[in-house]
């Protein structure tokens, strides 16, 4: 049985024009979001993960331009949607929790006003009295006391509570996909753990698909069932979480996973990745990672590797881990 994809991104390229030249934040990317999965999109700042997520909602900033590609959601190309259609698609089909979600709330509105305003825009005939029980249920799902919280203004909530309100808020129109951009970066570990247990519960109960953008490998290991690693605007490795962690095939992904300091490591020196992230306006030719890669060969300097299948649900873009050689190339 082939798993169903709820979102299929094909050959997507997003360009930002800068005074120094053009910057490809997303560079010919193919990406599938499996229905019902929790997929983590991992990469450093500037790797293009937020831009890729933005295209799924068709909200790329005005300086950015989508040069090529399509984003397929249930047979419709999201990038072709306009006006009313696009507005209905957002939030109702896919909702997003933005980075620093805590400042996404309007300081002059109570939580109830937030919920009601959004609901009314999508369901103009709605009756406020009738939908309030729904607001209650959503807030109860994120372990908040609706009686109290609905009446409060954002500044009266703690960071963790605001994030939980945002999760409830994003579920308001029962979307089928939710995109979470660094949902817990500003939060403490205990709150983070709690937020993820709530998300896990929502995922189990509703089967909603989730796309989690993060750079924290620990969070990925805990929450995701699939992982996609981005580097310099391209996806370099995708696959099932256990496969990718156990048989990491791309040298960058490998370094990212093995150099993450772990609470359980006792006394090991870690070898850092040499060099620093590339200048996106002036990318190295060939594979963008080759100047930092310990395994780079001649071909890496000339040709950009394509994403190739190397195992069941495991794809990698690296010249030196082609089928046959596989992940063992680095052992």
């Amino acid at each position, binding site marked *: 049985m082939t798993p169903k994809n709820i979102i299929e991104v094909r050959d997507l390229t997003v360009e930002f024009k800068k005074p120094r030249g053009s910057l490809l934040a997303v560079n010919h990317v193919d990406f599938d979001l499996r229905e019902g999965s929790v997929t983590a999109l991992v990469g450093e*700042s500037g790797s293009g993960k937020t831009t890729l997520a933005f295209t799924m909602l068709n909200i790329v900033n005005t300086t950015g331009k989508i040069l090529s590609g399509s984003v397929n959601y249930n047979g419709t190309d999201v990038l072709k949607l306009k006006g009313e259609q696009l507005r209905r698609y957002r939030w109702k089909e896919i909702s997003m929790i933005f980075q620093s979600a805590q400042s996404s709330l309007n300081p002059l509105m109570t939580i109830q006003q937030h919920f009601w305003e959004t609901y009314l825009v999508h369901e103009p005939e709605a009756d406020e009295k009738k939908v309030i029980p729904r607001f209650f249920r959503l807030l109860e799902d994120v372990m908040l006391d609706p009686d109290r919280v609905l009446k409060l203004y954002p500044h009266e909530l703690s960071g963790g509570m605001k994030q939980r309100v945002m999760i409830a808020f994003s579920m308001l129109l029962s979307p089928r996909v939710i995109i979470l951009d660094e949902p817990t970066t500003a939060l*403490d*570990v205990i709150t983070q753990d*709690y937020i993820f247990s709530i998300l896990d519960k929502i995922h189990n109960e509703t089967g909603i698909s989730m796309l989690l953008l993060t750079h924290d490998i620990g*969070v990925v290991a805990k929450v995701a069932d699939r992982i996609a690693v981005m580097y310099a605007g391209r996806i370099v490795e995708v696959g099932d979480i256990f496969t990718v962690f156990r048989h990491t095939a791309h040298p960058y992904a490998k370094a990212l996973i093995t150099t993450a300091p*772990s609470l359980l490591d006792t*006394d090991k020196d870690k070898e850092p*990745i040499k060099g620093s992230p590339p200048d996106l306006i002036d990318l190295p030719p060939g594979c963008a990672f080759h100047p930092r890669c310990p395994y780079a060969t001649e071909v890496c300097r000339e040709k950009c590797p394509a994403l190739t299948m190397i195992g069941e649900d495991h794809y990698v873009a690296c010249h030196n881990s082609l089928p046959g050689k596989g992940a063992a190339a680095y052992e």
Partner: protein
Amino acid sequence: MHAIIRCQGKGLLHMNDDPRKPIMSLRNVDMYYEIKRGLLKQPARIGAVVDVSLDIHEGEVLAVVGESGCGKTTLGNVIIGMLKPTRGQILYNGKDLSQMTRQELKEFRSSVQLVQQDSYAALNPVKTLYHSLCGPVLHKKLARNKAEALKMVHEALDMVEISHEELDKYPHELSGGQRQRILMARAILMRPKLIVADEPVSMIDVSLRISILNLMAKLNKTLNIAFVYITHDFGTARYIARNGNICIMYLGKMVEYGNVQRVLEHPSHPYLQALLTAVPVPDPEIAKKKRNLPLKSIEMPSVAAPPPGCRFHPRCPYSVDICETEEPVLLEHNEGLCACHRVKELPQWSLRADR
């Protein structure tokens, strides 16, 4: 010489037989902030650091770990002498900071350096790195002339592995990792005995974090500089302070202290046990195991109105009557220090038990 920790007036505790002498000691240090609430109202007093005593030894790496609002950054600022504590003593080489002469204070300020979290904000954006690095050397008269200062700067740059050409650049022309190295270079130029590093890697790309931590380890080893590493991240704390000590803070108080490996493998304080349960481990087979947080409530009380008795009691699953009324003191337990009334009766907890 025995390293000594004084525990809230309850006598001296011989912590361990660390042969190194403490270069810095805090004795019952309080740091209260006063927040004005209008003309007639009494100002609110917020205890960011309450009754903290600890020793920092020569060449030691001490990790100070806690959640936001626990007072770890304030503690760092007290250690470097930027904040004057509202109570208690700070001793540098056995000498009280408040009794120091102008000259001694000057020496102290060179010997104890700070490396901040935000490397961009820490460097003057309109000065080249040459000015940012040579300036302090000339000002402190560590070099007789510019040529000598430049030579010192070059040596420091070699140490932090930055090429000499970068000196003519402005801070915005460097990457975050490079800027953090420049901050390290600026700190070591003062020939410090101690560097307080406040979340030095939390704003740096993940692929560069290890290299900055390795650099700190190198400076620690080759120049015998002690480090106070302030962080909320247990992974990096364990990595950098693997042979050193760790101090866990909660709402302004130190709740546990001891050797990093021992404290993290067998934490005694219920708060630390809960915190460690919540830390995600970068290994899916371990991280995906369901573990319940040993906590009654996830909401952290306000520092402005800490709960009476043990500050952790409203969230602690083991709290009893005494915890609500009496504040526990740091006592020796399991070769470290722990502030918990019930520490001896708590069930055994091990980092790996259910992983």
